[in-house]
């Protein structure tokens, strides 16, 4: 059910060109996916510079192994899954204050670790975001990851399932869960 005009989709010709060693294909892919992948990496690492390093390393490795990578799940899912794997590895080595694999399934992680926000943000947006975050604070981190990958990065259900190592059904459960939580809040606030 992928919409043909979806801007986030990666053309199959790009994959072919990449495999054939076309450097421009790598650049195209990089420019398309750099920001989404950095955003995703930052969720795990909570460090903007480390997130950028991670994604750059990933692309350097992708180029070096371009002929040998397994892309059965699609290139985009491969990239996001690689970011997650690398981020979990990094965390294993030097962010030992919590176990993210466990955290993913637990609530409150993001709330506990959230970095301070910039003071110059628009108050409106800050308030709304604060309200939203409060509303979803009790949800598992995995639910929030699924919502981000789906509604911000616009990945398909099966791509998300591949990336996070859960079932497609699991992805759907997390999405309904997120929507239901938002709906409850909207109803309560309206009273």
């Amino acid at each position: 059910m992928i919409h043909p005009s979806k801007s986030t989709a990666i053309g199959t010709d790009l994959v072919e060109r990449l495999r054939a060693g076309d450097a421009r294909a790598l650049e195209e892919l990089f420019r398309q996916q750099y920001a989404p992948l950095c955003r995703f990496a930052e969720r795990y690492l909570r460090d903007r510079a480390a997130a950028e390093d991670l994604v750059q390393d990933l692309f350097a490795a992708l180029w070096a192994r371009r002929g040998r990578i397994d892309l059965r799940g699609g290139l985009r899912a491969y990239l996001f899954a690689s970011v997650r794997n690398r981020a979990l590895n990094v965390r294993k080595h030097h962010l030992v204050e919590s176990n993210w694999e466990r955290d993913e399934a637990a609530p409150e992680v993001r709330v506990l670790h959230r970095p301070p926000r910039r003071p110059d943000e628009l108050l409106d947006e800050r308030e709304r975001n604060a309200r939203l975050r409060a509303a979803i604070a009790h949800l598992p981190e995995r639910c929030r990851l699924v919502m981000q990958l789906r509604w911000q990065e616009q990945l398909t259900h099966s791509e998300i399932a591949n990336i996070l190592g859960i079932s497609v059904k699991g992805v759907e459960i997390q999405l309904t869960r997120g929507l239901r939580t938002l709906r409850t809040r909207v109803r309560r606030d309206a009273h």
Partner: protein
Amino acid sequence: MSDSFDWRIIDRHLAGEASPDDEAALAAWLASDPRNATLLNDARALGRALGPSDDAPWDVDHAWSRVAARMHEHPDGDIIPLRARAFPRTATFARTQRIVAGAAVVLAAAGVVAVVLQRQAMRPAESQRRLNRHEVVAAVAQQTRVTLDDGTQVVLNAGSRLRYGDDFGRGTRDVELDGEGYFDVVHDESRPFRVHARGSVAQDVGTRFVVRAYPEQRGVDVVVTEGAVSLHRAGASATPALVAAGQRGRVDSSGAITVAAELDLDRWTEWTRGGIVLDGMTLEDAALELGRRFGVRVEIRGDDFARRRVSARFHDEPLPRVLDALAVALGGTWTRDGQRIVFARAD
């Protein structure tokens, strides 16, 4: 707000996958209750609320230039992030073919080795043509381990690069090193292995050794952990200097070669196991070493302070702890701003 509304339509809409039918159904749903629009907007805003706190745009151009610069890395180069434990305690490589050298340099010991240091052995044009085709890079805060086509294993320390030509292994095996590398060379008498480092050339016929040639050093160090070594410079008619296992040969900036017993071999190979050795070097040089290792820029305030000598060893310590230890030892203090660290005398 109807509970019976199909959540999958909202989901498809938010993910950019909605069909015209979906959009029509959604419009009707939105019109049925004002709270539905709030819900939809909240879900749409959720991505941003979840995302990073800093909305500054990513500098994709700059990031791409960094990746593009790495596209010539050897495909088999295995990058080892340094803050990850880089290397097993035993840094010896499994060797399948170990051939004892002996013909070129006649020494009694098994595993005889000749390392020949030559200055400008190749003309620049030739060197360009022959050596610059492949590149293995260890960026700052990384080490890279690579197996060359001949089976030779190389570990590159942070901030180092190794280049070689397509003709590597045809006739000779020439590599060019910037920085520091640990070499475990598979012997092949008919194809000498030569490391060109900052105008010098180290030639090997089967051994393990470290070549350290970072720009701030006033010379090139070759430390042999196994086998033996013969040093000389191209164009120099002087008798080669022999360096046995457990010795260090040093070519200083004037080209003079000295050979001395190296009682502390570990000091030279500790980096392959994730360690950092600051061995009586100036604080200024230590700052360069730490900068490469951790991918930061360390500035030392004060010329006198920068010339202070420092000796210390670290293993797996994170950068803040290393800096704290140095600060205590030297009576200094440090501050960090992103990738920039300022180290100054404490007042």
